[in-house]
């Protein structure tokens, strides 16, 4: 079937059909992302003081990825202009760079940024227990300066202290086996300590806190007593004015350890969607945005390869290929445009 007006403009709209189509699609995309952004506003405005985290994302890395997307927006429009000038080699070069930028963006997101979050751990303290953890929270100091209170202790999960009575030893061993953990007897009676580090497989930080509630393990008779956390700088030195506002340079957790009792915890989790409304909406929006980047890369690859719909089309009808590139370019600019809002609202504010 021949699709009409793929090169020539349709007389009534003045546009070739694909351009009309992509703009209608982008209009629907605005509503899709608009819904998620309004959810962000809703969650953020509804968050109690102290419950909307700041400065958890790596700003230099986010800035780098923003620059990568902007650069790719320039190269995709240059690739289209090259086709309009009938310079196929130039088109291949610019489009190749655009695709590479998309892959770099996804690589940074999936191989660095997200895993770094999954290996981070945070425990929200019950309001009644906040006083007890004052040395890590510095709320007296924050109150004097009229700043929002600190309600979370975060960092790298160092140890999970589990209580398993001797009678439940078999269940406990099964629990360890299921999670590929090893245990060492604790100094306390009847308690065993799971030691994080060389004994444990990577990824344990996100597995353990997934236990339905922090106080009850999946196996009856096995109970999480406490978490030992290698503290983030803000918890290690809570009265330092440096920690009152987000840092530009990402600061990893310190060597300072703190024991947080499970009974004092409102909720505890890795920095995964379930951690907080902030991470829920962060992973949803950046995840959907990432899928858009992936889709753009796939379509651009299709137009870049020497196949029937790609550069082979150039010999047959270069204007048709140029229009295809303009269409995917419009989509790609939209993806960049979404990121222009995503970057400040999640990384900076």
């Amino acid at each position: 079937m021949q699709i009409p007006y793929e090169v020539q403009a349709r007389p009534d709209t003045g546009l070739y059909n694909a351009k009309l189509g992509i703009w209608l699609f982008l209009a629907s995309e605005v509503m899709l992302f608009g819904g998620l952004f309004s959810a962000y506003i809703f969650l953020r405005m509804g968050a109690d003081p102290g419950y909307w985290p700041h400065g958890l994302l790596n700003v230099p890395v986010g800035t780098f990825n923003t620059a990568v997307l902007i650069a790719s927006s320039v190269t995709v429009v240059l690739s289209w202009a090259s086709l309009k000038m009938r310079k196929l080699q130039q088109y291949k070069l610019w489009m190749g760079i655009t695709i590479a930028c998309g892959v770099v963006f996804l690589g940074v997101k999936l191989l660095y940024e997200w895993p770094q979050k999954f290996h981070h751990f945070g425990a929200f303290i019950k309001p009644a227990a906040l006083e007890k953890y004052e040395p890590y929270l510095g709320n007296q100091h924050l109150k004097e300066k009229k700043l929002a209170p600190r309600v979370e202790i975060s960092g790298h999960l160092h140890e999970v202290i589990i209580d398993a009575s001797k009678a439940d030893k078999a269940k406990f061993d099964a629990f360890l086996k299921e999670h590929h953990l090893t245990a060492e007897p604790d100094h306390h009676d009847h308690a065993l300590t799971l030691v994080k580090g060389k004994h444990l497989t990577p990824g344990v930080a996100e597995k353990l806190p997934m236990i339905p509630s922090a106080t009850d393990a999946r196996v009856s008779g096995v109970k999480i007593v406490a978490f030992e956390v290698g503290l983030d700088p803000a918890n290690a030195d809570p009265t330092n004015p440096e920690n009152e506002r987000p840092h530009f340079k990402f600061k990893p957790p310190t060597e300072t350890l703190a024991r947080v009792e499970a009974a004092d915890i409102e909720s505890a989790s890795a920095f995964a969607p379930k951690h907080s409304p902030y991470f829920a909406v962060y992973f949803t929006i950046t995840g959907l945005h990432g899928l858009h980047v992936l889709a753009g890369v796939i379509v651009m690859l299709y137009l870049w390869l020497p196949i029937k719909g790609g550069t082979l089309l150039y010999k047959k009808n270069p204007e048709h290929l140029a229009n295809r590139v303009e269409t995917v370019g419009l989509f790609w600019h939209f993806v960049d445009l979404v990121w222009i809002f995503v970057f400040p609202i999640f990384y900076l504010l």
Partner: protein
Amino acid sequence: MSDSHAPSTETSHAPAAHGEHDDHGHAAHDMHLGLYLGIGATLLVFTLITVALAYVDFDKMLGGHGWNIIVAMIVATFKVCLVGAIFMHLKGEKKTIWRFLYFTVFFVAGLFLLTLLHYADPIYGTGYNHHWPAADVSK
């Protein structure tokens, strides 16, 4: 053509007739290459400005709260306008597409407004809000 910056609406170029020697097209697009690079550089500079502004405590300077969000959104909106006008060729684009966008802006604004409407609770007036206790009618 009424607008020189709408090359996509040009009629089909037969490859045999034009190829590498489309003088008019050359001049027009070469001029745009500089524009595209300039806009790209501007966007990069404004990204750095966005980052720098995030570390300025506007609330302290101006009083009140939420100023950093307003400042960041103004910069972001400016960047988005540049991308839309130049990279997406909206400057000089056909009326049909602009009409789509008017509707989109209208509906997305409505969507945001609906989300914010729960603060006012104008229909039943029964909402209690611990952020805006003044709006609490039960008192």
